[in-house]
């Protein structure tokens, strides 16, 4: 199947129908695997990389999960196509920089993508909407087991699965959740959360992984440790922390509604105003403003049927997606103009924010809760 066919359909994880998907955008799990007796891709000579690729790719393509797959050699993809895949989290930034000797295979639903010769010979990645790390793990685990029967994976009695970087050795598993946390950012609690999370051996990163900024109030929470803990233990621990952050976010939103309603109204109102009327907008600005709009939908300032539109804009305003839809490569300034045009057009019929009801509802809920609590105490 051609890439443009796959990319005209948005991936499953963008549908926003997974558990807790208002706050947990997506769950992702990747497994790093290597073949015995071949140098890792970063060290291998071109001929060896190609040998590994030609050995691995047919096995990956013959997986039942890849029955309706898209498969491409890295050199056959344009820079723009690769960037679109990065924006959809189907390939890593590192993989997008590869040429001859690498490839990517992904299923039509865009829930499973296998990078060949990234940092490791195989990176098996699953991604789904909402908080469902265990389901995603089941998928990649099944694929890994099937591939392990055909391919001779490098496995050490003591160290487990061997990887190019010793930070991945053992399970080779990195599980992560992408969380939208505007409540914690607005209430200035996010740094405390980040510190607490890093203390328990988990990492918090920005939108595109290691060393990237937290744009649009989007944060990735992932495990750091891959050795000395079972896959199941890692997932349990990560899940627990994510659920806690989720609860903190929910609480901070309730508290903002109650105590800092003006701050919310102001942020969401300004975002709405700029998005509706701007004529030039960089992607960073768009992400941050759309984040406020998304929060507005979550809080009921906007009707629920606006949700999908806002979620789609998050992706459509990313640089590569923007250029893909305009079918040409654009200069930064042209992109900013086009981005603003698209946002204005899409939001033309979007109703004004109405926070009154939400704020009143929030107060009532709080009152009821307080009465209940004092009743219980008495």
């Amino acid at each position, binding site marked *: 199947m051609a890439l443009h066919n796959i990319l005209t359909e948005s991936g499953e994880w963008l549908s926003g129908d997974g558990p807790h998907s208002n706050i947990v955008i997506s769950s992702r799990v990747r497994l790093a695997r290597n073949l015995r007796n071949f140098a890792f891709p970063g060290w291998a000579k071109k001929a060896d990389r190609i040998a590994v690729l030609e050995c691995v790719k047919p096995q990956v393509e013959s997986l039942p999960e890849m029955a309706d797959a898209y498969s491409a050699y890295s050199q056959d993809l344009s820079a723009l196509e690769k960037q679109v895949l990065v924006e959809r989290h189907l390939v890593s930034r590192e993989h997008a920089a590869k040429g001859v000797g690498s490839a990517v295979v992904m299923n039509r639903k865009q829930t499973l993508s296998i990078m060949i010769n990234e940092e490791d010979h195989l990176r098996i990645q699953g991604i789904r909407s909402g908080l469902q790390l265990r389901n995603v793990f089941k998928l990649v685990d099944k694929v890994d087991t099937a591939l392990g029967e055909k391919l001779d994976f490098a496995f050490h009695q003591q160290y487990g699965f061997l990887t190019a970087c*010793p930070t991945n050795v*053992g399970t080779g598993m990195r599980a992560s959740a992408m969380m939208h946390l505007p409540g914690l950012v607005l209430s200035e609690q996010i*740094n405390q959360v980040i510190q607490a999370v890093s203390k328990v051996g988990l990492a918090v990163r920005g939108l595109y992984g290691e060393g990237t900024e937290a744009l649009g109030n989007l944060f990735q929470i992932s495990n750091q440790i891959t*050795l*000395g803990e079972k896959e199941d233990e890692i997932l349990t621990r990560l899940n627990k922390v994510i659920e806690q952050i989720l609860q903190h976010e929910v609480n901070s939103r309730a508290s903002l509604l109650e105590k800092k309603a003006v701050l919310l109204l102001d942020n969401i109102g300004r975002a709405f105003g700029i998005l509706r009327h701007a004529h030039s907008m960089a992607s960073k600005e768009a992400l941050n403003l759309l984040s406020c709009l998304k929060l507005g939908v979550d809080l009921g300032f906007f009707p629920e049927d606006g949700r999908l539109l806002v979620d789609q804009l998050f992706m459509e305003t990313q640089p590569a997606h923007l250029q893909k839809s305009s079918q040409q490569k654009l200069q930064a300034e042209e992109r900013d103009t086009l981005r603003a045009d698209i946002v204005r057009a899409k939001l033309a019929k979007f109703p004004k924010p109405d926070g009154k009801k939400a704020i009143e509802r929030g107060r009532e809920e709080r009152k009821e809760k307080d009465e209940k609590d004092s009743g219980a105490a008495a």
Partner: protein
Amino acid sequence: MNCDVCKQKTATVFLTQIVDGKMQKVNLCESCSKEKGVTDPKGFALADLLLGLGASEEMERGSTGQKCPMCGFSQADFKKTGRFGCSNCYEIFAEGLEAMLKGMHKGTTHTGKVPQRLLKARQHAEELKRLQRELRKAVDDEKYETAAELRDRIKHLEPGAAGV
């Protein structure tokens, strides 16, 4: 002295942190230190920032000057890239590796998934051992008929065991 992160600009921020009784030093240029949030001491974890640095020092203390016979990778290459050359390197550079892994992970022994192939091979080997034990017992007990049966079963298993 150059920055440990970008390796280009001159380092102006010098950091020393003691983690689990071990001293780690990092030199950073101004822009990298800002990017990594070093200016906010609370939010900054040295180990998280540069696992490669302390790690490569550990490695250096291990086998120096050695090269992996399979892929030609050396100690110096690890220091440069923070990555190994091939799976065999984990054996060649085993010295120093333990200490490095200890600093990064929860332990140094994998407790998770084992590939199906190895699992089968392990079961196979265990079965073989069990049969051999029974054979010895049968011979000791002078149950030669049982012994002959066991010997045949072992024979049947053995070539496969060698091939796995």
